């Protein structure tokens, strides 16, 4: 493996049926590279939740994934409405998703909390009316409890 592999994904807006394709692609690639299945799963879930969030709340965006032997970094960028209260958005059960999203199985207020649980480090920056940037890091050596 090269020192660093960078993957870039454009996430389309409002195409809920295709949501998860980027995460699925990353999962497949990491598996092929021989990463531990638990690490692969943690990356896949973190990215999938972020991908879903982008489609529900932000009219899509883009995701960069930086893979090295000791860590996997996922950077989500969108130009959506921004998050008013990040602390509240990070708490389990808080959701601003509309009802039609709930009928699709999302909007339980677990997106960001799940991303936090499955990653070793997470940082959310958001500006109202400008967009949101989420950085998540998963260490390849550290295992979840």
């Amino acid at each position, binding site marked *: 493996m090269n020192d660093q592999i960078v993957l870039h994904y454009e996430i389309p807006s409002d195409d809920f049926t295709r949501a*998860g394709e980027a*995460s699925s692609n990353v999962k497949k690639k990491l598996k092929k590279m021989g990463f531990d*299945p638990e690490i692969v*799963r943690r990356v896949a879930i973190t990215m999938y939740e972020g991908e879903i969030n982008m489609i529900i709340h932000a009219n899509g965006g883009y995701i960069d994934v930086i893979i090295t032997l000791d860590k996997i970094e996922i950077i989500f960028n969108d130009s959506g409405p921004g998050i008013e209260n990040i602390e509240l958005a990070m708490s389990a059960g808080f959701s601003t998703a509309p009802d039609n999203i709930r009928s699709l*199985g*999302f909007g*339980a*207020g*677990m997106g960001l909390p799940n991303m936090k649980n499955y990653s070793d480090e997470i940082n959310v920056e958001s500006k109202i009316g400008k967009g949101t940037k989420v950085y998540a890091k998963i260490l390849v050596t550290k295992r979840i409890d």
Partner: protein
Amino acid sequence: MTINDIKDILKATYIIGEEHGEKEVHTACGSDMMSDVLAFYKDQSVLLTGLCNPQVIRTAEMMDIICIVFVRGKVPDEMTVELAREKGIALISTGHRMFSACGRLYEEGLRGGASYR
């Protein structure tokens, strides 16, 4: 417990994936909210759900869930079935409601896996 055992216990039928029938399942999770499923962390699992869209398959894929049981006799559309086929996930359908489907599997020894916090 194998996928075939689950099928028999729930008097269910295969939608696809009969060839995976002898695979072992260690834990189960029942929910219509996919983010709740994503909060649950165990492999070799079965998901019981009443939700029938492609995101159920995507969620299962991310979690390494090997079998999905659709409760209340539901059967997903062709696109969803096709995605499951592509991912090698077995789909079965039972007439039981969520509560009784989960209860029957629990009674036979299948457990949730996620710890109560």
